[in-house]
């Protein structure tokens, strides 16, 4: 009964069936429960009309949206590899299998064939069952192609996971290590990049972490969730499978059977394993402590803890003995630590010049500046390169609320952004110290002043320079002013500047702090309103944009296609104010001192008590209690005159608490109370006069 070809051995194959068919059976059961049964469950829910059904819900079953389905698809292949090649990790079984007149190559191919049958047949049966159900029940939205795609992707990933498990088994001698290492290998491409990025940003000021993170989703294990998958990924995974298959075969041929039971079966791989695990664990624990404690010192503690634990742990695993405190072993760690310290020192001293590097201004074609890189995530870098002219004449008002990507192309704006960036770079020594010891500066975060800034320079030679910072905006007011007041900035940040007024169905103005509201549906009025808003926005100064004064009302714009967006009627919008006055709706669109406010009470901060506590009282106490307390404060200022109230309304900021020298309470006629404050600069003169007396 000997098969002529030695590619597979029939006896071994039949034996695999006899011993491990249950894996395939359990896999099939799991898949049937998580795919066809799920369809039946959703279908019977629809029958009982329990939920008004979105037909897309069926499609989700085939988009890897289900946790259990994913778990089964991920666990089964590696488990199959562990079982089929388990004989290699058991000395007795390995001796028996290799005393047989069957070559290693044949064993390898036969077990792989068995594994693929155990994995593929259940997938195919499940797909057929799902297809039959979908066709039989007449479920809409799910096409045969959806199911076929699901099947193809599942087969591909099962193949890759299985082969990874097999290849891993060739260089480890313990099934447990084989299982863990298989998943680590599958995660390694993005896992290691992420760890490196996380740690690089500790030492590198301006490190464009978020931008780089977008490009490291390259792990097959993580990618399965990112459905749908690209053709290039399919090719890459197939290629990876073939490579791993060949690698496994190569290693099997060279494997020493007596290595069963040791963690790593090839002497040459041991240092890689040892220092690789040490390095990864060091980065992992280090970035954990950095994130939790916001301090470089803690990160270094994490490095020591992580690397030492991992180093000794791996040594114990490799030696299978707890006696690892030997001079030779400690020396190995010492050399490793020295190299790490040199690398960290090099990063810290910015030997590569990353922190200082700025392109030549003349080389810059356009520059992206925003708080996040996210809008670019669906584009590749090359696409951010194109130049768009945002001149008024060329503007093509759209039927959707779409602001263009914040890519500055006008020379003066590029120069302004560049100047801002230069200033940030020149502050790097101080800023880096703040970044590495953030816990000391936590208070400056309470106000939310430190915000992220992201830059991408698109250079004329086609390359890009990305940087990311967290800065305290007021420090850069001089540089930001010209950017914020530029046309491009305003177009990038105000959807209303890019909308065609004739596409608007309705404007709804909802006054804040009251329930007054105005609706404008007349096309002519809409045109006027939009024109007024556009000119107000264009005239707005940096100071107007950054002041903490709440607006008069929220404006809700509804398009004819029912898209909506919102903006605020800010106090600096004088044209819009005039427009409302012209239409006679002014008093209905905002809080009017004369109509709506009973009185206001202003108190001065005494500067006593712990800083920051007053602001928290708002969360703990009823505003009425605070108001009553304020009214009992000796020397408080009570305002009833509507004209003076109007001044207060125009000037107050929405920050209440001891960061403001004056606090204000407004009591509305409807009984509501709202609070705010005045800065020393904003406070009306009568307030200052009252409190200096």
């Amino acid at each position: 009964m000997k098969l002529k070809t030695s590619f597979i051995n029939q006896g071994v194959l039949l034996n695999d069936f006899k011993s491990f068919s249950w894996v395939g059976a359990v896999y099939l059961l799991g898949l049937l429960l998580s795919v066809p049964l799920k369809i039946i469950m959703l279908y019977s829910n629809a029958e009982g009309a329990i939920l008004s059904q979105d037909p897309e819900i069926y499609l989700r079953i085939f988009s890897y949206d289900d946790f259990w389905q994913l778990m089964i698809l991920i666990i089964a292949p590696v488990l199959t590899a562990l079982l089929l090649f388990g004989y290699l990790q058991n000395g007795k079984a390995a001796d028996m299998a290799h005393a047989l007149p069957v070559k290693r190559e044949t064993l390898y191919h036969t077990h792989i064939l068995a594994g693929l049958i155990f994995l593929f047949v259940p997938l195919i049966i499940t797909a057929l069952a799902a297809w039959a159900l979908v066709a039989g029940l007449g479920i809409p939205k799910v096409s045969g192609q959806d199911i076929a795609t699901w099947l193809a992707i599942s087969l591909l990933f099962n193949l890759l996971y299985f082969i990874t498990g097999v290849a891993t088994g060739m260089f480890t001698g313990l099934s447990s290590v084989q299982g863990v290492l298989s998943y680590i290998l599958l995660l390694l491409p993005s896992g290691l990049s992420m760890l490196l990025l996380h740690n690089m940003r500790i030492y590198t000021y301006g490190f464009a972490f978020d931008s780089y993170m977008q490009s490291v989703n390259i792990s097959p294990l993580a990618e399965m969730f990112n459905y749908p998958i690209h053709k290039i990924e399919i090719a890459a995974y197939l290629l990876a499978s073939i490579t791993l298959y060949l690698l496994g075969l190569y290693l099997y041929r060279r494997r020493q059977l007596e290595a069963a039971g040791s963690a790593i079966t090839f002497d040459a791989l041991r240092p890689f394993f040892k220092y690789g695990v040490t390095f990864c664990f060091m980065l992992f624990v280090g970035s954990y402590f950095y994130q939790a404690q916001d301090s470089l010192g803690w990160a270094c503690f994490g490095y020591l803890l992580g690397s030492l634990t991992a180093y000794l742990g791996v040594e114990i695993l490799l030696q299978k003995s707890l006696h690892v405190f030997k001079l030779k072993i400690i020396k190995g760690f010492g050399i490793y630590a020295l190299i790490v310290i040199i690398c960290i020192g090099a990063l810290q001293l910015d030997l590569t010049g990353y922190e200082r590097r700025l392109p030549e201004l003349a080389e810059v074609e356009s520059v992206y500046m925003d708080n996040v890189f996210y809008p670019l995530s669906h584009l590749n870098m090359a696409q951010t390169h194109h130049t768009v002219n945002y001149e008024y004449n060329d503007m093509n008002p759209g039927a959707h609320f779409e602001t263009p990507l914040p890519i500055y192309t006008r020379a003066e704006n590029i120069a302004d952004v560049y100047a801002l960036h230069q200033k940030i770079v020149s502050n790097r020594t101080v800023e880096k110290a703040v970044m590495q010891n953030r816990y000391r500066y936590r208070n400056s975060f309470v106000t939310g002043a430190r915000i992220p800034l992201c830059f991408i320079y698109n250079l004329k030679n086609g390359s890009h320079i990305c940087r990311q910072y967290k800065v305290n905006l007021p420090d850069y007011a001089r540089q930001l002013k010209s950017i914020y007041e530029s046309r491009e900035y305003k177009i990038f940040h105000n959807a209303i500047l890019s909308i065609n007024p004739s596409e608007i169905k309705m404007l709804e103005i909802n006054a804040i702090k009251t329930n007054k509201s105005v609706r404008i549906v007349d096309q002519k009025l809409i045109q006027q309103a939009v024109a007024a808003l556009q000119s107000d926005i264009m005239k707005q100064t940096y100071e107007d944009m950054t002041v903490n004064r709440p607006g008069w009302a929220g404006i809700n714009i509804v398009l004819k296609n029912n898209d909506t967006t919102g903006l605020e009627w800010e106090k600096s919008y004088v044209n819009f104010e005039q427009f409302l006055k012209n239409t006679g709706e002014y008093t209905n669109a905002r809080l009017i001192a004369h109509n709506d406010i009973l009185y206001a009470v202003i108190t001065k901060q005494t500067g006593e008590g712990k800083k920051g506590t007053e602001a928290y009282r708002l969360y703990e106490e009823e505003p009425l209690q605070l108001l009553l307390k304020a009214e009992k404060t000796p020397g408080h200022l009570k305002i009833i005159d509507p004209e003076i109230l109007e001044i207060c309304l125009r000037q107050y900021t929405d920050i209440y608490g001891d960061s403001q020298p004056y606090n204000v309470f407004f009591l509305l006629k409807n009984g509501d109370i709202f609070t705010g404050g005045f800065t020393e600069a904003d406070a009306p003169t009568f307030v200052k006069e009252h409190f200096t007396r």
Partner: protein
Amino acid sequence: MIEVEGVSKRFQEIEALNSVTLAVKKGSIYGLAGTNGAGKTTLLKILTGVYRQDSGQVKYDGENIFENNDLKARIVFIPDNPYFFTNYTIDDMANFYRRIYPRWEQGRYLKLREAFNIDMKRRIRTLSKGMQRQVAFWLGLSIAPDIMMLDEPLDGLDPVMRQKVKNLIIQDVAEREMTVIISSHNLRELEDVCDVIGILHQGKMLIQKDLDDLRADVHKIQVAFSDGVPESLLQDMQTLRQERKGNVLIMVVRGSHDETVRRIQSFNPAILDILPLTLEEIFICEMGDCGYEIKNILY
């Protein structure tokens, strides 16, 4: 038939075999003796193509064993602790071997049941250690191998079964010219079945002797002289060991039987006895011999 030359094998820091050389003739039974950890199992695993030697050669009629299917199909290796698949009955295991070994003889397998008398439907892992070993013999013999490698095969068998297995092996050797290599830490166990004995110690082959030659060559002699042992008696005689008790001399001597007796008789001893010599005694003497020789070179 089997030629092993200069085979060495290291397990990380431990040197398991150091340049081992041996030769086994077709149809003979080779006994591999040595203490625990001497390298016997490692040598057998290399001989069966399970392990690969670091250096040296293992040839079967000129062919390498490693990854050689045709050769391995003719060899059965029974380790000291045989492995069987989980939940497999004897029949299941037999079916597996039948598919793998082209030389499997089903008739022989069925016939051997009488000798072993174990239920073929029993799950092997539920059997006792000794019975599992019997199953391994049973299955191994059913393959009708040309070469059989047995690692500590008789350990854990009861005396009846021990004799039965020995008989089966000897029968196959006699009928089919099967070649056998048996390892044991007990020299006495090898004494009555083996043709050749090799002694492995700390990874080295100390000595390799044909038992018949050994028996014919080494003699334990007790002599007594009425007026003291003559000084010139031991001259020109290869004494491996000697012990003097007054006028009585007990010695182990190498040399042909007749000549040795003739030489001693020429000194007119009062008594001359040739005493029985166990294999163990011979080897202890032989190894002492080696040791002394090395000492002589050193001094």
